[in-house]
């Protein structure tokens, strides 16, 4: 185990800084708000700096940071109960046949579909799919059993599959196929 001095060193701060993009990406996937995501990451990093001595295994730094951020996120939700953001759903329905295939439209649809997942599913899917955490690490970060991770992942992906069905279909040959638009 590294000494406290070492943990508070420039090397430790550098490792925190290196983790920032991943933390931010996940925070954004959870919140869909850059400002809130920035605040979550900042809060998590500040807490990590203050509590550096609690990190028992330096090799587990990233999972530890994500766990801190998860706690920050849950605290945030308790302080600010979520109301569904209709803006992002409206964005998903703005597709036209001409733009359905465009890259940004697909990215937006996937992001919006993730945003529509219930919180627990969203957290699990993003940690596994976006950040590549193992089930064991994800369970540790979210403080739930591995079985819960598996269940949430399965149900979350099923919901995503339903929302993104047209984007996951094998490309059709010949004339373009009419796609179903989501109508609110």
């Amino acid at each position, binding site marked *: 185990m590294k000494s406290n001095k070492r943990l508070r060193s420039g090397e430790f701060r550098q490792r925190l800084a290196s983790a920032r*993009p991943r933390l931010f*990406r996940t925070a954004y996937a959870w919140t869909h708000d850059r400002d809130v995501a920035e605040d979550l990451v900042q809060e998590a990093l500040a807490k990590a700096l203050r509590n550096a001595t609690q990190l028992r295994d330096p090799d587990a730094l990233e999972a530890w940071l994500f766990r801190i951020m998860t706690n920050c996120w849950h605290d945030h939700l308790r302080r600010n109960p979520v109301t569904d953001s209709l803006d992002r759903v409206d964005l998903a329905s703005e597709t036209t046949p001409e733009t359905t295939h465009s890259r940004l439209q697909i990215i937006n649809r996937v992001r919006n579909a993730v945003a529509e997942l219930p919180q627990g599913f969203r957290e699990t899917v*993003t940690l596994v799919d976006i950040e*590549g955490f193992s*089930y064991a690490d994800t369970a540790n970060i979210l403080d739930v059993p591995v079985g819960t991770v598996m269940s949430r992942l399965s149900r979350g992906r099923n919901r995503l599959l339903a929302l993104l069905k047209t*984007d996951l*279909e094998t490309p059709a040959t010949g004339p373009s196929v009419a796609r179903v638009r989501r109508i609110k």
Partner: protein
Amino acid sequence: MTYTPNDRYSDELLNAFVDDELSIEDKERIYRALEADAGLRQRVDELRRLKDLTRTAFQSIQPDFPHRAGFPARQRISFRIAAGLAVLAVGVGIGYGLATRMQIPVIGEPMAPVVTQNIKVLFNVSRDDPEGFRKVLDQADLLLKKDNPQEPVAVRVVAHLGGLRFLGVKTAFSNRIQQMQTTYPGRISFLGCTATKRQWEDTGAVVELLPQVVMVESGIYEIVRREQQGWTHIHI
């Protein structure tokens, strides 16, 4: 992670297969089932494409200041003003560049990131050449040492035909492979060809690969697929 026969085709099991969370035995069981069940293949393929799509959709999300850490919240206002000016200054140029490079993706296939300049290198190991494989690991090590948030490095080593043997549990490279995966978590993966493995097993050979090895149905197909996704292909 092991499963009972009752779980054979549960959603949880198939998801764990796609996420490479199964033991070698369970993975083999699924591969055998996939050969016989087109519906199962379609389901697994769908889950894989969904996973790729989800990952890709968020790949370009970056904070305004990737290397800033530990500053109190009140200092962020000035950072954001500076960020706004910087973005304004370069936005037009970058926007033009992106617009001209943007391509329409094939629906359902993974897409390249929009902004980040990822370095994605695919090593194709098809020969039983220990010296060549050692060079692959050396080169992968050099590349991964250059990994940083602005220029993330991803390395995949596809081992098939004579090259598959280097992913075995008892080779001169086993420790190094495991060490690299620990040193660069998520940055390097070793992909083994199921078709090659099956051919060897048909001759009576016992093929035991490292537990970290991700099995793909066909090494060649994996290489072609990743080349189409923009991976730099290096054949050793």
